[in-house]
């Protein structure tokens, strides 16, 4: 029905109010109208073609047949003798293609009539926008009111949240348990993709190998890759660095929802200064988390790709953990939960010999240890923990992992001793730092938590002895597979690092 050169399509479908002038000839009418106007010439009974202004400079442009009516047309004006049949055809076409009846009037006659119509339409439009604005303001008011009056957290949930807020920060990623670390100098910017999302991230530790020399500043910045937004930034002078793990912390765990994070590390220094060195470690299987993107592209070097040695800490989003100066807000937050890595749990070994034609002891997948009670004397195994600064508690979960087990009162116990204490001595209480009582398991698959709280902080290596026993001497009950799982060490935050946290702040 309407035809126009393709270069005019965007103008005919933009949001500006416009008037369509329908004529019988190609002359541009000499009208002064207060909005965009487009002249269409009737070329046969029911087709109009846009008359191009000479200054358009598109004399031979492709002519596009409109499938859809132009946008925001305030009026069709036929100043000449366009027949009603053509105008009726236009209305029909408009309704068929546009999905609604023609909402702009067709005006026949003088410019005065058009101006009157435009004035009326302008007033209606102003009123419409005013109504929309009013509705929007009322929506916002109701929304605020609903927050005030209706979005109330029940008291019991608030109590639950209060308890949750006391939860210790937790080590959620640690790639440093490998001897393959190397030192890298921070001479240019290091961009380290993080393997976790932003939500719940409380901070990270970097392992400084060499503090550098001269005057300079080390910067660290967390960046959300999807939005490009800098979440937090921190800095420390070279001369404030000391070798070892350096904690960088947000004041509270991040509530941002970005799935992909980057850690940027760089330095700025005076001429002659030497940049610090920090530890890097093999990325291994997932080289996409290496800081050298080129390594991903070369198959042979995949296993050589490096990432920063990192400890990532998590907490409850929105709960203030640290003050602006880096002090812990709450004394109850002094503890940090550090899950024992599977590679450490995997070193578990028997301390009392036991044999059976079926599995009775061994490291299972994902940090689980099987230790079946077999004899009159308890079965025993040990995990040797390396020195952990500020160790104050060891805990684990224990359960019967076979639902067919009908035996009840199978006993389990954890004893923490100094390094090198034998199982017999540990059971007798010699060299024991702390121990649980015997805990009896009564239901298969129902876990119990064994917690060994040390009387004092330990910085030396300790042995964690695991014991299981039958309720009474006699035949071995079938399916009595006792499994220890989820080993967690709790350490004292203030003792875990040599330096106060470096606070990361929003830029």
């Amino acid at each position, binding site marked *: 029905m309407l035809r126009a050169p*393709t*270069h005019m*399509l*965007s*103008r005919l*479908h*933009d*949001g*500006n*109010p416009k008037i369509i002038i329908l004529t019988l000839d190609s002359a541009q009418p000499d009208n002064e109208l207060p909005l965009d106007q487009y002249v269409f010439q009737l070329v046969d009974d029911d087709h109009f073609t846009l008359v191009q202004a000479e200054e358009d400079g598109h004399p031979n442009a492709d002519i*596009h047949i409109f*499938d*859809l*009516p132009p*946008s*925001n047309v305030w009026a069709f004006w036929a100043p000449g003798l366009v027949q009603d049949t053509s105008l009726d055809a236009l209305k029909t076409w408009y309704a*068929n*293609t*546009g*999905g*609604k009846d023609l909402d702009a009037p067709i005006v026949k006659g003088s410019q005065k009539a058009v101006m009157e119509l435009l004035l009326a339409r302008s007033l209606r439009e102003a009123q*419409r926008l005013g109504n*929309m604005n009013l509705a929007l303001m009322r929506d916002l008011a109701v929304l605020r009111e609903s927050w005030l009056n209706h979005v109330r957290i029940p008291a019991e949930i608030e109590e639950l949240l209060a308890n949750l807020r006391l939860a210790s920060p937790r080590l959620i*990623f640690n*790639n440093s348990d*490998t001897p393959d670390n190397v030192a890298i100098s921070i001479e240019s910017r290091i961009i380290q993709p993080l*393997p*976790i999302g932003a939500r719940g991230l409380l901070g990270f530790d970097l392992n400084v190998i060499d503090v550098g020399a001269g005057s300079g500043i080390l910067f660290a910045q967390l960046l959300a*890759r*999807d*939005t*490009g937004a800098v979440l937090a930034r921190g800095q420390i002078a070279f001369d404030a660095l000391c070798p070892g793990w350096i904690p960088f912390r947000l004041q509270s765990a991040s509530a941002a*929802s*970005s*799935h*992909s994070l980057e850690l940027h590390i760089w330095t700025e220094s005076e001429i002659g200064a030497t940049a610090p060195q920090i530890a890097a470690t*093999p*990325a*291994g*299987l*997932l080289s*996409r988390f290496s800081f050298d993107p080129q390594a991903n592209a070369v*198959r042979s070097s*995949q*296993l050589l790709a490096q990432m920063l040695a990192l400890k990532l800490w998590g907490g409850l989003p929105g709960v203030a953990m640290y003050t602006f100066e880096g002090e812990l807000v709450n004394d109850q937050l002094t503890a940090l939960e550090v899950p024992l*890595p*599977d*590679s450490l749990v*995997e070193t578990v070994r028997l301390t009392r010999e036991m044999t059976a034609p079926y*599995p009775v002891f*061994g*490291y*299972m*997948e*994902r*940090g689980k240890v099987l230790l079946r009670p077999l004899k009159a004397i308890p079965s025993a195994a040990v995990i040797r923990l390396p020195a952990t600064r500020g160790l104050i508690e060891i805990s684990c979960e224990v359960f019967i992992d076979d639902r067919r087990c009908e035996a009840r009162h199978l006993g389990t116990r954890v004893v923490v001793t100094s390094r090198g204490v034998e199982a017999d001595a540990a059971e007798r209480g010699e060299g024991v730092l702390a121990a649980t009582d015997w805990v009896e398991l009564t239901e298969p698959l129902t876990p119990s938590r064994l917690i060994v709280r040390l009387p004092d902080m330990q910085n030396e290596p300790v042995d964690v002895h695991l014991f299981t026993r039958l309720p009474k001497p006699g035949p071995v009950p079938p399916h009595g597979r006792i499994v220890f799982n989820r080993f967690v060490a709790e350490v004292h935050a203030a003792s875990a690092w040599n330096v106060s946290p470096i606070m990361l702040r929003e830029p």
Partner: protein
Amino acid sequence: MKHAVADTRVAVIIPAYGQPWLTCETLHTALNQIADFNYSIVIVNDGCPTTETHDVCQTFASGFPERVFYLSKSNGGLSSARNCGIEFALAAFSQLEAVYFLDCDNRIGPHLLQRLLNALRSSGPEVGWAYPDVSKFGFAEHADTSGPYSPLEHLFRNFCEAGSMASRRMLDAGIRFDTEMRQGIEDWEFWLQGMEKGFRGVHVGDTGFAYRRRGESMLVAAERDFDSIKRYIRHRHPRLYNPRNVLTLEADARSRYAVYHPDTDSVSCFTVADHIEKLTRKEFIVRLLQAGQRPAYGSCPGQLIAMNSSLFDGFLANGQLLGVLWTLECALSRSTVVACSVRHSSAARPSISWTSGIDTDKDRWPGGWRETIFAIECFELIRHALSGTTDIRGGGMQSGKQHHYLPLHIQYSGAAIPDQVDHSHDSLQTLCRGIVEVAELTRHGLWDALPLDRHRAQTALPRHVYPELFNLPSVLPSGVEQGKRYAALILNATNAEKLTAAEHLAQALNFEGFIVHLFLFAPACPEIAARSAFSQIITMPLPHLLSGVRSDTYQAGLISRLEKRHMNEAVGALATYDRVVSVDGGLSHSLMGSLRRLKVETWALLGNGTGKVTSAEINACSAFEQAYSAIILPDLETAHLCRAFGIPEARLRLWSSVINSADEFTTADIT
């Protein structure tokens, strides 16, 4: 700075229908793009009856007249609205490079357009679209669509969101949304059109695409009708959804078998044996461990077979490899571990015989030589290796399988003699040790403990593809040689007359350009004089070894049939052939109906080309005559008899006319 509409490189097409206030959010994120090129936003009001939708669209168009364009059309559905936006963008923006589809309740990150267009610009011409990860909000969920694009995976799983960017070359190829699809999932069909025209996708990370998942939405509704929608899509794309095409994609991915050769300590990854990727053991294990962590469908086969390379080469040279691997695959679908002892003897012509139970008697063949093939699924091998248990036979039974350990034995002869040094007895243990070493080296435990989205992180298995697409457990990888057609001749027994008939038919088919495979529904294939007529000889022993054959009567005649599972496997074995010929009836009759539905040309040969046809043969054939496209007869008299049994004349062809072409070929060859 004034936006140059004429220089628009990307058009964001937003169909609008309802949800006006969510559309505000969508438009807000679309307007906040940070890009070094010009982009425009095209809102298409799909005839929404509520004035609020129009008001929101019109307000944004008025507010950003150089950036936002507004089309209003009669209601035609989501596909129609997107197509309308495409046509407008193609006509209005002469410099258009791509369009981005954004639904009116979703959100995008500020760098999305730039990153997607960068990916398209830096890709080859075969890349037609760029797709993001999907972060679902509302009901929270994150869908990791990362990894190299796999057309094989895209046939059975839609991992490309509608919120993707389609290149100009895709649009210029005439690809549009199917306006008949008004129930949803039309985006999958759109990308499949691209795939059918030779385009591929590319994944782009960190785009910030966020999909609003509500309790009730078009997607939620579509999930209820998912089966019927999938049927419609597959019906629309017969060129994609046929066993031969799927096999071709699988062959490209080399994702069917990983054959570990203990004698060379290497791994051959392939689907068809003339398209092998060789890896060292360590390279393979790294790839295998990665397959469990990050999506890369098809990068690592899911079925591992441990077989000495000399034995592998021997089977290959004797045309027996395909059949051996297929039997192991079928056995593996029933059992966690398959162990197969092999004894070899030298002979001018190859033969093979399968029996149940592994041969452990070292003295039965004095001076003889024996080795063992093992088959296990790769993830099961990892599970076993990392659990630290020593005897693989002592583990639990894999879910969905009937056996934990299935022993078989092959007695085999051929001219190609394998090295008579057995490296195979502890091949799985060697692999397990390798897995433990590489897992430690590559820090598998570190990454495995991380809560990654592993929904698509898997090795490739036939059961991911073929049951879903064709209701078949798998298909035999017959071959994918360009420009070649493949024919299977089926025999139940191998007496001289039948073999001669099969040989003559094979020559005729060879002359027609077919590559011909001989199938034997028997546990053994004796030495065959006409071996050269068949590029592969495939025995199907399991129905006989696992009691999978039963009998039915038809008009007082006894007809053998396979039990359902064996039958599905047999149909799968033949599904990728262009033509399948039943040479001596029997078990093969009952397969033909299923094969014909898969567009396989099905023939029956009566009388073995000898002229002697019994009434029982015709009776058996007539029970299945509708399943055949042609029935080959020795003479006109038999044709009369067939008509008397009710077989339509249109299906009948004379043996002499079929083999005529072969005679001409033979004569021409001699002269």
